[in-house]
């Protein structure tokens, strides 16, 4: 189709947008949402307050001051140390499909940017990329981001959204827990601030490594935060778990999160917290 025919199509009498384009429904309360407003509210349901997952790009757009973001290591991508295959095919193929679908090369975007005018290093996970799983590429990008923060003495924010280690990379993915934690040890020793933001869901190997190691751990309302899966636990203890089990609020009340912050306050709160962690001059 040439340029001309495109143009022609555009000139067609404008049809009213379809209902699908205008409306969506909340995946929690099923309430009808006016899409444009919902997206403007960073996908928080105005009816029930449910915080829908954000992509890494959306998250960066929400948190980082306009035009201040510079990405690191955009070319680092999935590797396949085990040449892993399951009955539905190879991990390599699956990764390619995921890359096409998401436009990402790994389950995390890293870079530097400003949050309310404070320079920070960011690593933002994307659940759409293989469930935000921690593979060797993910780990390497986060590791490098931490080392960048260390070299430049810049505060660090990691936004987690992950089901845990990426089993297709076997033991190598498990080792990313140790690798990222080792880098955080150096950051900690150097006295550089690190805030961990846990979003829905943050579980398994990610919660059992960098996500729980913030100077401050904060989470979004209702986010699932835990180590083992609910079903596994129920099978183990042969008992139903309470509904609020492993919600951010529950985990906070059990001592592991400093605060639960609604998405619309996040950017501001992060800015304020980083100012404390840098003992910034009071304005």
């Amino acid at each position: 189709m040439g340029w001309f025919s495109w143009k022609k199509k555009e000139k067609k009498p404008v049809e009213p947008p379809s209902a699908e384009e205008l409306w969506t429904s909340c995946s929690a309360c099923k309430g009808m949402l006016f899409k444009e407003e919902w997206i403007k509210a960073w996908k928080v349901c105005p009816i029930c307050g449910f915080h829908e997952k954000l992509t890494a790009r959306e998250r960066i757009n929400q948190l980082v001051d306009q035009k201040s973001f510079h990405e690191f290591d955009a070319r680092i991508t999935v590797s396949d140390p085990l040449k892993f295959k399951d009955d539905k095919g190879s991990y390599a193929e699956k990764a390619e499909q995921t890359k096409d679908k998401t436009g990402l090369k790994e389950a995390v975007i890293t870079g530097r940017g400003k949050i309310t005018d404070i320079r920070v290093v960011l690593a933002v996970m994307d659940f759409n990329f293989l469930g935000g799983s921690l593979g060797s590429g993910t780990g390497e990008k986060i590791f490098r981001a931490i080392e960048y923060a260390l070299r430049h003495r810049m505060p660090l924010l990691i936004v987690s959204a992950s089901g845990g280690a990426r089993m297709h990379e076997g033991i190598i993915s498990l080792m990313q827990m140790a690798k990222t934690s080792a880098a955080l040890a150096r950051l900690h020793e150097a006295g550089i601030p690190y805030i961990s933001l846990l979003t829905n869901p943050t579980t398994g190997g990610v919660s059992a490594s960098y996500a729980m190691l913030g100077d401050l751990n904060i989470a979004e309302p209702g986010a699932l935060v835990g180590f083992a899966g609910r079903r596994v636990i129920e099978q183990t203890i042969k008992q139903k778990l309470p509904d609020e089990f492993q919600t951010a609020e529950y985990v906070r009340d059990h001592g592991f999160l400093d605060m639960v912050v609604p998405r619309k306050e996040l950017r501001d709160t992060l800015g304020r917290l980083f100012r404390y962690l840098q003992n910034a001059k009071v304005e």
Partner: protein
Amino acid sequence: MYLDFEKPIEELENKIRDLSAIRESKPEVQSEIESLQKQLQEITRSIYERLTPWQTVQVARHPERPTIRDYIANLFTDFLECCGDRAFGDDPAICGGFATFEKFRVMAIGHQKGKTVEDNIRCNFGMARPEGYRKALRLMQLAAKFHLPVLTFIDTSGAFPGQDAEERGQAEAIARNLREMSRLPTPILCVVTGEGGSGGALGIGVGDRILMLGNAVYSVISPEGCASILWRDGSKAPEAAEALKITAPALLKLKVIDEIIPEPPGGAHRHPEGTMIAVRKALRKHLADLKGMSIKKLLNKRYEKYAKLGR
């Protein structure tokens, strides 16, 4: 107890036992016994040389496989167990204390599996709770304060997935251990003796040298768990075990471990003494090696070791 692929071994051992029983009255069976014993040796060796990953898993989980108590009793003199995380409890799924290994004073820490049912209930089948990981960390920090190397013995199907363990911060406890072990200013020598189950294994498994017994396994997820997720069928565990590359030779190739400690043919459960000799030899070598390094160099090398993984 025989594993299913050990049938030929079982048959031969039964035959030898039967013949031995009548040797007194029929001395002529002696030569047959001897030939059967040779056969037994060969068949054992050939089976154990060709274990599939899934068979290796079964060996690694063998109920008669040596536990940390066996290693303590055989490798150490003067063991003094230390309890408690100084915060919530004492987790019997993790055992730790001062120990003397030849000329070295060390802190020994490991997962505790039982050999009887009661024993296993007491130590929760080696599945530690957060207080177990915190006890381990406390003992490691104590060791570092007094310049004692840390030896860890890894043998767990995983951290305990219970409601209480979640509520007391299983994730946080493991995460903190990973961070603190990576910078602990004393040598850390880890040995995967049986099952290296995911984060529950890694929680005491970050160190300067990671050794692994020949029939131990170490995996990001149990083969059953992986199969039920990726194959949607837990019975495909053998396929998953194959795909996950969880045996010692595979992990050596991936540079996740530094050395394989060979088990006698037939496995550690069949030959604990031989296993102890091999472990002792490996510990001796690596401890001497690590003790000869400055802490600064040690920590840099430890950091580099993990930095390189997955690059």
